[in-house]
């Protein structure tokens, strides 16, 4: 009997939460936004979500076979990537583009860089940007279920057609043109708060990101300084989706508290600059991806000092 005693390093007990539980929480947190998307944009939005998620899981499954890695679809991370990607699609996106996007996200951006925890760009966002560049028309056409197409709130703003702009309430609830999952600030906030309460994410990044965009647009987006409509900028477009769900992605953002704040502020400045000073109406995806690239650098310069210790020269 004695030779059967198992010997391993302490600690000998573990918390219950595993990777799958965390991914499941993210999925749960995205349910309200998905439901609102389907409510406003109709059953086609639901189909887009299902097709994209299935394609992402299939891509993960195939990638494991091709790359001879351990099968990881069980950890649900591919579902999260697929869902996030779908929520970043316009409801009218052709299904084949959605499928191509899922494969780009999983195979190219995630698995080729070593799989979960290793990729340096957010798979869903990187895929979205690649699709935007490749099929700009299909990726930015906003059609309501009744066939009427319209401009997103940020495009309206860009063109200076403020008379047509939706009110704050519509923006808050999500009754405006936009990507499936980005329009309803209310639903996204519910999900975001859920993640914070469950300690899946911290408040640092979302607060820093949204706060910076608010401050920046308040100062610079108006006719004169300090007159910008910051609330419109916060509620319109993909800011809340990006700040709570993409800029908090574990693999591609800094680990330390200080790092997260720097990351959030950087995202906020970049997103605002893109929105205000380039031809693009929306800058959240680009901003996050650019900051993803800077993550390693930020991590390197934010090594915390030990308890009671002096600051380490970086």
């Amino acid at each position, binding site marked *: *009997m004695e030779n059967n*005693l*198992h010997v391993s390093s*302490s*600690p000998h007990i*573990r918390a219950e939460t595993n990777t799958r539980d*965390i991914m499941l929480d993210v999925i749960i947190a995205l349910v309200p936004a998905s439901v609102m998307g389907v409510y406003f944009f109709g059953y086609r939005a639901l189909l887009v979500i299902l097709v994209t998620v299935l394609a992402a899981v299939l891509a993960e499954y195939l990638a494991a076979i091709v790359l001879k890695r351990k099968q990881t679809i069980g950890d649900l991370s591919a579902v999260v990537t697929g869902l996030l990607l779908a929520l970043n699609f316009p409801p009218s996106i052709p299904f084949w583009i959605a499928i191509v996007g899922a494969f780009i996200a999983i195979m190219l951006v995630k698995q080729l860089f070593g799989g979960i925890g290793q990729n340096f760009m957010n798979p869903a966002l990187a895929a979205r940007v690649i699709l935007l560049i490749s099929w700009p028309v299909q990726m930015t056409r906003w059609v309501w279920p009744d066939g009427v197409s319209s401009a997103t709130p940020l495009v309206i703003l860009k063109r200076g057609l403020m008379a047509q702009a939706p009110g704050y309430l519509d923006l808050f609830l999500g009754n405006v043109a936009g990507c499936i999952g980005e329009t309803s600030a209310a639903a996204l906030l519910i999900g975001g708060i859920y993640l914070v309460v469950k300690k899946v994410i911290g408040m640092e990044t979302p607060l820093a990101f949204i706060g910076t965009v608010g401050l920046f647009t308040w100062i610079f987006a108006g006719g004169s300084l300090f007159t910008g409509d910051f609330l419109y900028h916060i509620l319109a477009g993909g800011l809340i989706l990006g700040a709570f769900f993409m800029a908090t992605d574990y693999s591609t953002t800094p*680990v330390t508290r200080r790092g997260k704040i720097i990351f959030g502020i950087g995202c906020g400045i970049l997103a605002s600059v893109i929105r205000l000073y380039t031809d693009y109406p929306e800058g959240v995806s680009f901003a996050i991806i650019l900051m993803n690239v800077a993550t390693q650098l930020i991590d390197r310069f934010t090594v915390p000092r030990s308890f009671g210790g002096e600051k380490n020269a970086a």
Partner: protein
Amino acid sequence: MFVKKSFSGGVEVPHFKNTENIQTEKIGVPDEVIIPMQQHSGAPCKPTVKEGEPVKVGQVIGISESFISAPIHSSVSGTVADISSMIFPDGRYVATVVIKADGKQDIHEDVKPPICTNKEEFIEAVKNSGLVGLGGAGFPAHVKLNPPKDKNIDTLIINAAECEPFITSDYREIMENSADIMDGIDAVTKFIGVSNVIIGIEDNKPEAISLLKKLAAGKKGIDVKALRTRYPQGAEKMLIYALTGRKVPPGKLPMDVGVIVMNITSVGFVGRYLKDGMPLIKKRVTVDGSAVNRPSNVEALIGTKLSDVFDFCGGFKTEPFKIIMGGPMMGIAQYTLDAPVMKYTNALLAFDKTFGNVPPETACIRCGRCYRACPVNLMPLHINRAALVEDMDALHKYHTMDCIECGCCAYSCPARIPLVQSIRLGKTLIKKAQAKAKKDESQKDVKS
């Protein structure tokens, strides 16, 4: 209002204090005891007895010339049956004296209450008692109580936090031997010359808190403070911070911030020893875990085999998968039930497979839970990687040596990565590199 200061990080662990209301039972004299010559941190002792020699209870059987060491005594009367080396769980071989007990428990003539009239005599007495830190670290007590002159000690902290799951042996010491504890505190404060005493205890032990408060009420300078229940509240640095607001810098000792920390069972032992002169030959041990038939608190003679201890507690109800000496967060998994109870053993846990099996490791997802849980503010995910690829620069950069091996990081890792194991590996790599650098240095004989 009293605000509970605490460290950042740490984890909420399940308490499992199943044995807290179980009175300590004495295990009888075993047939033989196995007494290793190292039961403390520091230099090992050399046996002072020979095979075949008769010994008595309390007789010195091992000493060391080194300052950082503690003598070892026989816990039984009988005959030395064997002196050989025993392998420790960490891979070291340690000289070990095996004594066949005669069951008479004749007490050695040297065992008598020490005469203490001043600090020197007191330190000498503590040294002769064989006392080591009973909280699990096993640091010789006389060394701790005798800091260099230039350290200004103003506070004695009594560690009664007992933050590890399952363990209730300190709690039972408080409930059963509070008078000894108070006598021990009196002696230490009198001879060492500290006036300020703080007893720190987690707030999940209200009965012990009110008992200690009652006893301390009549005395000057003894403060009983309830601490937030959060692991690792009993870790020395975290405890000192919670009670005094002082931070012990990395690589420094409590005395560098004017503090001496003693475990509550240690101080209770001092109180008893001054009265009866019986050296450290027995220990209260919590016996628990999913495979144990009758979870208990037992008083075992040092050197009692683990199998004897578990037998006393009704044996196993299922096949034990893992045996741990100490708590589940920092304890050491044992290879064999022939291992003995040691001076610093505070718990013996036996887990069945369902409870003791750690799920398989998956890839790090960079979630940062290990970093958030680390009370020392380290980044275990980076140390893990650095240790596995032997990246020495990164091991230094991420302050590997500052880790207190509390286990919070690995406990909270959703990928179940054995982070503490790789951090220990990293420490070994650093120590090896330092030893090598030192050797190179002395060989080159360059200016210092």
